[in-house]
C-alpha cells in the first residue's frame, strides 16, 4: 500500500509571511514534459507594492545590524539549505528537467555561493571604503552603505535556485532589502527558498519573493518611487531598456541583464552600495 503524498501549496513570501496573491490568481507550473506540479501564485501589482512596503519597513533594522550578524544569518541560510538538499534536488529535477547530478551540482553551488557571500558581510566595508588623506585638519572616512530597497528580476532560464543565491546574497549582505521576482517557469525552488529564509533568522521583509510574470510586475517595480535600485539580471528577454527608462524617472541604480546566474563577485556587492564620506574637524592643539 503506497502512502498518498501531501502536496505543498506554493505561495508568495512578503514581510516574512506566506500570503496568496491578493488578486486570487494562480498559474500552472509543470514539468518539462507537461506534467502538473503545482499552482503557483500569480503576483499582482498590489502584491509588488506590498512587498516594497515590507522591504522598506525592514530596511532600518537590517541595515543597522552588524556585518558579523548579517554574515551569520547568511551562513545560516546555507546551513538550512544543506539540510534540505534532497528537497531542492527533487524540485530542480522536476521543474528544470535536470538530471540528478546536474540538480545536485546546482544546489551545491548555490549553497557555496551563500557561504562565500556570508563571509563578505563584515569585510566588504574594509575593501570598498577607505580613509582619505585630505589637505587640512580633518578626519575623513569613506564607507559603503546599502542603497536601500532593491528590486530584482531573478535569472529566468534555468538556475532557478542558484540564480536566486547569486542575486539575493550580494544585495542583502550589505544591508539592502529586496523584492525578488522569481523564475517564471520554475518558481518552486524560490518558494521553498522562502521557507528556508523564514526559518534562518532573516528578519521578515528583508527578502520578499514574488512568483508570476516578470513582464507584468517589473514595470511597477522599476517605476516605484520607494525602490532605490533594480537588478535586471534575469530581464534579458523582457523589454529591459524600457524598464531602465522607467527606472530613470527616480534615478534608480540599474544592473543590466546577464546570461545565466551571475558569478559571485565583489562588484555585485558594491553595485548596490553608496559611498558615504564623513568629514570631521580636528581641533588645533
Amino acid at each position, binding site marked *: 500500500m503506497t502512502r498518498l503524498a501531501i502536496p505543498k501549496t506554493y505561495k508568495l513570501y512578503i514581510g516574512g509571511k506566506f500570503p496568496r496573491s491578493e488578486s486570487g490568481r494562480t498559474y500552472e507550473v509543470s514539468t518539462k514534459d507537461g506534467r502538473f506540479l503545482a499552482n503557483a501564485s500569480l503576483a499582482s501589482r498590489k502584491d509588488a507594492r506590498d512587498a516594497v512596503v515590507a522591504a522598506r519597513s525592514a530596511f532600518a533594522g537590517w541595515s*543597522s545590524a552588524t556585518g558579523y550578524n548579517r554574515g551569520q544569518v547568511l551562513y545560516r541560510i546555507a546551513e538550512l539549505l544543506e539540510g534540505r538538499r534532497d528537497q531542492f534536488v527533487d524540485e530542480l529535477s522536476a521543474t528544470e528537467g535536470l538530471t540528478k547530478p*546536474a540538480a545536485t*551540482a*546546482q544546489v*551545491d*553551488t548555490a549553497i*557555496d*555561493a551563500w557561504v*562565500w557571500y556570508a563571509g563578505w558581510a563584515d569585510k566588504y566595508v574594509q*575593501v*570598498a571604503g*577607505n580613509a*582619505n*588623506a*585630505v*589637505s*587640512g585638519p*580633518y578626519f*575623513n572616512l*569613506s564607507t559603503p552603505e546599502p*542603497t*536601500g530597497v532593491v528590486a530584482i528580476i531573478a535569472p529566468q532560464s*534555468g*538556475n532557478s535556485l*542558484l540564480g536566486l543565491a547569486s542575486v539575493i546574497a550580494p544585495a542583502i549582505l550589505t544591508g539592502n532589502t529586496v523584492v525578488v521576482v522569481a523564475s517564471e517557469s520554475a518558481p518552486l525552488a524560490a518558494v521553498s527558498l522562502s521557507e528556508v529564509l523564514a526559518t534562518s533568522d532573516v528578519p521578515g521583509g528583508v527578502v520578499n519573493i514574488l512568483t508570476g510574470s516578470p513582464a507584468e510586475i517589473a514595470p511597477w517595480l522599476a517605476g516605484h*518611487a520607494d525602490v*532605490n535600485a533594480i537588478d535586471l539580471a534575469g530581464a534579458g528577454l523582457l523589454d*529591459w*531598456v524600457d524598464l*531602465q*527608462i522607467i*527606472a*530613470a*524617472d*527616480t*534615478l534608480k*541604480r540599474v544592473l*543590466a541583464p*546577464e*546570461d*545565466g*546566474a*551571475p*558569478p*559571485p*563577485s*565583489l*562588484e555585485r556587492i558594491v553595485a548596490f552600495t*553608496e*559611498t*558615504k*564620506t*564623513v*568629514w*570631521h*574637524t580636528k581641533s588645533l592643539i
Partner: protein
Amino acid sequence: MTDREKPAPSRFLDYAPAPESTSILHLKPSYGLFIDGEFVDGHGAPFTTISPATEQPIAEIANADSSDVDVAVAAARSAYTRTWSRLSGADRGKYLFRIARLVQERARELSVAESLDNGKPIRESRDVDVPLVAAWFFYYAGWADKLDYAGLGPNPRSLGVAAQVIPWNFPLLMLAWKVAPALAAGNTVVIKPAETTPLSALIFAEILQQADLPAGVVNIITGAGNTGEALVNHPDVNKVAFTGSTAVGRAIAKSVAGTGKKVTLELGGKAANIVFDDAPIDQAIEGIVNGIFFNQGHVCCAGSRLLVQENIHEDVVDRLKSRLMTLRLGDPLDKNTDIGAINSREQLERIRQLSDIGEKEGADRWTAPCKIPDKGFWFAPTIFDNVSTSSTIAREEVFGPVLSVLTFRTPAEAIAKANNTPYGLSAGIWSDKGSKILAVADGLRAGVIWANTFNRFDPASPFGGFKESGYGREGGRHGLAAYLESAGWASPQAISTTGSTSRKKATS
C-alpha cells in the same frame, strides 16, 4: 523694531574698494571650439558671455552644433586609439602634473576670469576654486600609473571617449573634477562647459596647448543644452559624466538606457545642516553662513535647510541675522566681497519665484539689509524662518542665497527630517559630542557629511549622492571607478568548479 530697521553696521566695517585688476587677463574678443588641439569655428550661431555683475559682454563664444560634436568626438576617438591609450600611465601622469603646475602658474589669471564670468567673489575663486583645480590634477596625476591599486582588480581598462557636461556654479573646478580622473584612467574627453560660464575652460584650453597635451585628448566645445544633448547621445561615446540639475540628469539616464554607456550623475541636493544645542555655537554660525551663502548658494551640496534644535532656535536665528548684516555684497572682483552676483538673469528669476512662494506659503522672510548695485543680477542673503517640512522652499532646490530654518527636538527627529527629501547629496552636523555626531551621521542618507564644518572639498575625498542626487563618486580612489572597468577578478575557486556545467561567466 524689525531687524530690517536696525541701524546699518557701524562704520568700521566699511572698506574702501579693493578690486582685483583685470589687466592680468589676455582675453580674445572671440573664442572658437577647442577641437583636436586647435581653436576652430563652430557651426551654430555664436553667443556672448557676459559678466553677471555688470551685464557687460566679455567675449563672443562659438556654438557647437551636432556636426561640431561629431568632429569633436571623432577627434577624441582618434586620440584615444592612436595616442592616449598607448601611452604609459607614467607618461599620462606627467602630462597631468604639467597641467597642475600650469594652473598654479596662471592661477590669478584664472581666478579673475572665473569671477568675471561667473560672478563669484574673487576671494572664493582665488582661495577655493582655482587652488582645488590644481590640486585635483596633481592628485589624479599620481594615480595614472597606479591604477592596479584602485580597487578594481589587476589591469583595469579605460572606457574610451568620455562625454562630460558641467554646470556654471564652479566652472573650472567642475572641469577639473571631470577631466583629471578621466585622463588619469586613460580616457579621452569631450567636455561642454555651461553656456553662461565658458571663459575659464577656454583659458584652460590654452594651458593644454602649453602643456603640449596630445591633440584630441581633451576637446572643449561650447554651446547650450542642445550641444550637451548631442554630445551625451553621440553613439561613439563610452562614458557620460554630468553635473547639473536632477531634471536633466533624469533625461540623460533615460537617453543612455540600453546603450551600455557608463554614467555618473552629480545632481541636485537639499542638504540639512543640523545644529544641536551642544554645538560650538560660534563655529556653527560661521558654518551655516558658509553652508548656504558660499558661492551665492549656487552649490548643489549647499546647506539649504537649517535644522536647529528647538531650545536654541531663537538664539541661532538672531546670531545668524547679525552675522549676515556684516556680509558685503557687490563687485565680485573686489577682494572684500563676500556675496557676489547671481550667475544669470534666469537663475535670479528662479530664486525670486521660489522665495515668493516661500513667503506665500507662510514662512517668515528676512533679508539682509545690503545695497544692491544698479546693474547686474543680485539677491541679498535671505532667511526663511518657521518653514514647514511640506513647504516648497524646504523641498525644492533654490540654488541661491536662501536659507530655510526648521526645528527639531530629538536626534531621531532631526534624522527623520533631514532624510525627508528625494535628494541625498550632503548634510552637516554641529555638536561637541562625538558619539552623537557618529550616530547621527550613520542615520543620514547622504553621500557627504560634514561634522562641525561644511562645504569642504578635497581631491582625495569622494563626493556624490544617495537617492535622486545621482550616482557615482567624484574624487578620491572612488572617483577612478567612474572612468575604469574591471578586467575581472579571479572567480572564487570552490564555487566556479562545482557549478561549471550550469553557469556562465558574466559578459563584460
